[in-house]
């Protein structure tokens, strides 16, 4: 708010209960005093809602001392067929020596009047509501701001030559608009409605189109290009570009709804002054030999001529509240606020990052023996009995909590008898923020795997190198010793429930282990188990520098086959669903026809519609069955794919010796948390995540880092793109690329990847030993693998939270 005020030079109040708006103020030497001669005389045009009147105004010196007398003489008038909105004038078409008038009607017709005669009317295309209208003599065009929120320019010539499509109806010229489509000369989208348009040119400088929008003030060139724009911090009410004080710049007055008048030189604020009212129109003129008088008109008819005051007014009304202080109340409020601040500080922000661990403990004990009677829903798979194991979850809380919810999750194909428990009246939450505590545990390998006959040959083999001498497989997998004769057993067979067989071979001479199987994906569980058990084994021995590695080529081909199979099933599912919906439509159509027949008072023969209905019904049922079957297959295929993915990640990690952080990033990319559905499946999610990795931390040049984000993930046409990206990812990693998601130079753009928001389990392996003998709790953001003391634990992980 400026400290300067406008000085009242002369003011008056106009009208009686009338309202004024822009267009109600015109400042000119209308009585042509001083110069008036010939035809160049100024006249006064007044636009009424249904009439245009043109007057000549003349003054005669009064023969009495009481002042001059003015007379308005009506020169001509036009009755309008349409309600007028605003008007502009100028020498349209470059006509010399006289001005034409163009009126915009409320329904978007531009009506041109050539003195006493009506020239033509044209509808503006795409019109909704009238905007401001101005005429640019330099380009001979009309400029308006349409309801599309764009500045539009129409050439007068184009307007004039746009002819009526239907001349027959043109009995009354004025009633009809044009038929031919008007072509706009140029448009400029300003994205807001405009209050006013002014076209000015001072000192022979190029003419500029000024547009006052609701929040911005634009200066455009003749061709619609923006010369400059100024964002306004307040809501403007009217404006006027009034002169150019220095070459190349234009001064503009902009008034606003805070009773302020701002004076800009182009976009620089030069002065601001306070007005006694909110002007709806502003003009600058020379009155009584005083140049530069600001004339403002408010909507209730206050007309003021003012000049800019140059004495600041330093008085500022103090705030009422600050004077009438109730100290007791303030004290109470202060204490309350301080308490809140203290509480927030205590809990470290809104989301409590550090839990008080004693509030709630979750511990899990996996029973060492299987249930004597299996609790599994499908007791048999093939020839094998499905065992079950009891997991005991213990919740310990020190404070009263409400609505504690325990959910247990295991990876398919494992199943739970109950996965949700809710304990009312247990949990008290002072902040109202739900808190999550997670605890991971491992299930015995035996749950899904039995000792089996080793086989010498297999189609898929993986060799894992270590840096320590080989360990007896019996000591690694004590429960799986089928042949108890030799404790230097170097071959061991595993037999999964459902039939798949995996053979583990330990080299007698080198430090290698080989895992082989008929199915690529089956390799993962045993490989992972082997590595974990080896690590545990050496840890117990006190060996610190044990490491595994993988040197063979990445088995991507086998992996891709699984991807293809999964994808094929997805496509198949889509096709089946489409067919099903088609048949369903057909079924309903037949039903409708049949119903019409049956309703008919004179029954017509059914013409085998019933047979058709029956046939369609059978088709629908068959298709539904097929969809269901496909869904089952898809689920199975996805489980296999996940196993294979785990294996690939494991191998990449070993192959490139990636840190736990980097493996976690890979897992986040390859194993998105969301479910695999028809609409959003694994392929596109993973492809997006991998492309992101390739574009950020694995990019070769900064050029590649330009993110072109596809906001929508759609099912791809085929899997070639995904395969290409996975291959590329392996290549880049092989060439030394490293995964990193931090915002340093390597990866300037971070974004949340699909599935990338999982918290990253850090250094599981180091911290595990700490809680060796007690299955311990885990707070959120820290996933520790809890272990039962038994050695037979398998990597089948469950999570309870």
């Amino acid at each position, binding site marked *: 708010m*400026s*400290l*300067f*005020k406008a*000085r*009242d*030079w002369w003011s008056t*109040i106009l009208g*009686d*209960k009338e309202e004024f708006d822009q267009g109600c103020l015109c400042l000119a030497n209308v009585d042509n005093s001083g110069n008036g001669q010939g035809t160049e005389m100024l006249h006064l045009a007044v636009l009424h809602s249904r009439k245009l009147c043109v007057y000549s105004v003349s003054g005669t010196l009064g*023969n*009495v*001392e*009481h*002042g001059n*007398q003015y007379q308005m003489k009506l020169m001509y008038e036009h009755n309008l067929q349409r309600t007028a909105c605003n008007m502009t004038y100028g020498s349209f078409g470059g006509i010399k020596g006289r001005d034409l008038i163009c009126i915009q009607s409320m329904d978007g017709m531009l009506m041109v009047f050539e003195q006493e005669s009506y020239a033509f009317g044209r509808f503006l295309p795409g019109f909704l509501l009238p905007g401001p209208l101005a005429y640019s003599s330099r380009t001979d065009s009309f400029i308006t701001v349409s309801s599309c929120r764009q500045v539009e320019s129409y050439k007068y010539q184009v307007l004039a030559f746009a002819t009526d499509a239907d001349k027959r109806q043109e009995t009354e010229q004025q009633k009809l608009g044009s038929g031919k489509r008007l072509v706009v000369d140029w448009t400029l989208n300003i994205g807001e409605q405009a209050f006013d348009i002014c076209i000015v040119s001072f000192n022979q400088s190029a003419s500029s189109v000024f547009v006052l929008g609701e929040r911005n003030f634009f200066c455009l060139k003749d061709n619609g290009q923006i010369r400059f724009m100024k964002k306004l911090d307040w809501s403007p009410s009217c404006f006027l570009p*009034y*002169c*150019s*004080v220095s070459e190349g710049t234009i*001064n503009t007055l902009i008034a606003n709804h805070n*009773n302020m008048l701002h*004076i800009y030189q182009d976009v620089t*604020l*030069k*002065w*601001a002054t306070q007005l*006694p*009212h909110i002007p709806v129109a502003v003009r*600058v003129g020379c009155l009584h030999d*005083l*140049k*530069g*008088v*600001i004339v403002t008109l408010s909507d*209730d008819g*206050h007309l003021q001529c003012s*000049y*800019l*005051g*140059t*004495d*600041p*007014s330093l*008085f500022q*009304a*103090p705030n*009422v*509240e600050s*004077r*009438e202080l109730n100290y007791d109340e303030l004290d109470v409020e202060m204490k309350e606020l301080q308490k809140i601040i203290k509480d927030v500080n205590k809990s470290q922000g809104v989301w409590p990052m550090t839990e008080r661990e004693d509030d709630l403990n979750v511990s899990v004990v996996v029973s060492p023996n299987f249930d004597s009677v299996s609790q599994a829903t499908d007791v048999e798979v093939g020839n094998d009995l499905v065992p079950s194991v009891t997991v005991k979850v213990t919740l310990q809380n020190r404070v009263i909590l409400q609505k504690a919810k325990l959910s247990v999750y295991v990876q398919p194909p494992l199943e739970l008898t109950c996965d949700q428990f809710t304990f009312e009246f247990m949990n008290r939450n002072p902040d109202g923020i739900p808190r999550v505590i997670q605890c991971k545990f491992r299930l015995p390998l035996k749950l899904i795997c039995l000792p089996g006959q080793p086989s010498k040959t297999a189609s898929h083999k993986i060799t894992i190198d270590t840096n320590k001498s080989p360990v007896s497989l019996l000591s690694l997998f004590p429960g799986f010793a089928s042949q108890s004769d030799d404790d230097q057993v170097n071959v061991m067979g595993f037999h999964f429930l459902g039939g798949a067989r995996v053979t583990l071979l330990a080299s007698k001479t080198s430090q290698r282990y080989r895992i082989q199987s008929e199915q690529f994906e089956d390799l993962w569980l045993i490989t992972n188990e082997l590595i974990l058990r080896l690590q545990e084994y050496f840890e117990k021995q006190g060996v610190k520098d044990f490491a595994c590695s993988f040197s063979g080529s990445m088995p991507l081909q086998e992996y891709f086959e699984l991807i293809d199979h999964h994808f094929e099933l997805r496509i198949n599912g889509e096709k089946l669903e489409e067919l099903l919906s088609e048949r369903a439509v057909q079924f309903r159509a037949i039903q409708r026809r049949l119903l019409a027949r049956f309703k008919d008072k004179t029954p017509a023969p059914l013409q085998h519609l019933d047979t058709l209905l029956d046939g369609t019904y059978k088709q629908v049922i068959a298709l539904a069955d097929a969809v269901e079957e496909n869904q089952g297959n898809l689920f199975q295929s996805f489980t296999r794919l996940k196993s294979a993915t785990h294996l690939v990640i494991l191998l990449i990690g070993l192959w490139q010796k990636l840190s736990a952080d980097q493996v976690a990033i890979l897992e986040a990319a390859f194993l998105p948390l969301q479910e695999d559905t028809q609409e959003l499946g694994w392929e596109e999610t993973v492809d997006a995540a991998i492309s992101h990795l390739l574009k950020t931390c694995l990019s070769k040049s900064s050029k590649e880092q330009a993110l072109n984000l596809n906001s929508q993930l759609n099912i791809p046409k085929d899997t070639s793109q995904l395969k290409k990206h996975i291959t590329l990812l392996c290549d880049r990693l092989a060439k030394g690329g490293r995964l990193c998601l931090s915002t340093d130079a390597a990866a300037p753009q971070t974004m949340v990847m699909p599935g990338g928001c999982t918290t990253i389990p850090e250094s599981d392996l180091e911290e595990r030993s700490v809680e060796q003998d007690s299955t311990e709790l885990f707070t959120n953001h820290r996933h520790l693998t809890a272990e039962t003391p038994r050695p037979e634990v398998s990597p089948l992980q469950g999570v309870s939270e």
Partner: protein
Amino acid sequence: MSVLDALWEDRDVRFDLSSQQMKTRPGEVLIDCLDSIEDTKGNNGDRGRLLVTNLRILWHSLALSRVNISLKKKNPLSGQTEALYILTKCNSTRFEFIFTNLVPGSPRLFTSVMAVHRAYETSKMYRDFKLRSALIQNKQLRLLPQEHVYDKINGVWNLSSDQGNLGTFFITNVRIVWHANMNDSFNVSIPYLQIRSIKIRDSKFGLALVIESSQQSGGYVLGFKIDPVEKLQESVKEINSLHKVYSASPIFGVDYEMEEKPQPLEALTVEQIQDDVEIDSDDHTDAFVAYFADGNKQQDREPVFSEELGLAIEKLKDGFTLQGLWEVMS
């Protein structure tokens, strides 16, 4: 001899009024009374009462009954939610007043002030001497809402020019209007409020009715000739008696109906008059200084054209530049 005390209530800004001046004059009606109002500019911190009449706004302190202000209702007001800002100009001195409602969020805002001011502004024809305005339509006087024509006299000569102008008189309960028969827009409207004297005097045209307007309306002396003399005397008598009736109960034309009258107004008025009995009249301090609209100055400096802005500005004090001022302020 003037029948009516010169009307100052709506023309002047006065401070430290006497109890007599605080009283409503005939025709002046108390419209609204707002309590817990602070005169933020001049008496910051004091609770007071704001009274709104059809002619002026009065504020007086509850604690210090000596402090009071009477405002003419002449200038634009701008009301905000809780503060009333009034800018007035009186004899080329600008005063600024800020009244604040001390009860935050009070529903009783200054709406009545705004509305009454509007009514005041739009009824100036009742009170102002007007030359050449749009008075006549189709040879008939455009009547004001509470106005009744008592007499219409044809053949009245206006003696302002050498040859005189033949016209018509309208005599109403509010004013006297004359217009030339040849030209409607050559007219004059003289409210009784602005009439200083009505006499019959001799002129170069013979006996004439002479109406002298009040000083504040410009002190015009208007001569009218009505023939024959009997008619002239009859008319003067009529005008005089109407003037007297008007003076006893003037019609100011400011009509405003409060939807609900919260308190009996008379009681309030009486009460504060009693408060006001002891006035130390010597103590005429410069109370008005606190209310100067800006810069503690009584008058604005004259306007000059500024090449720098391309606009008229108040002449700068010596040693100041426009840019310097602006940079300091912004």
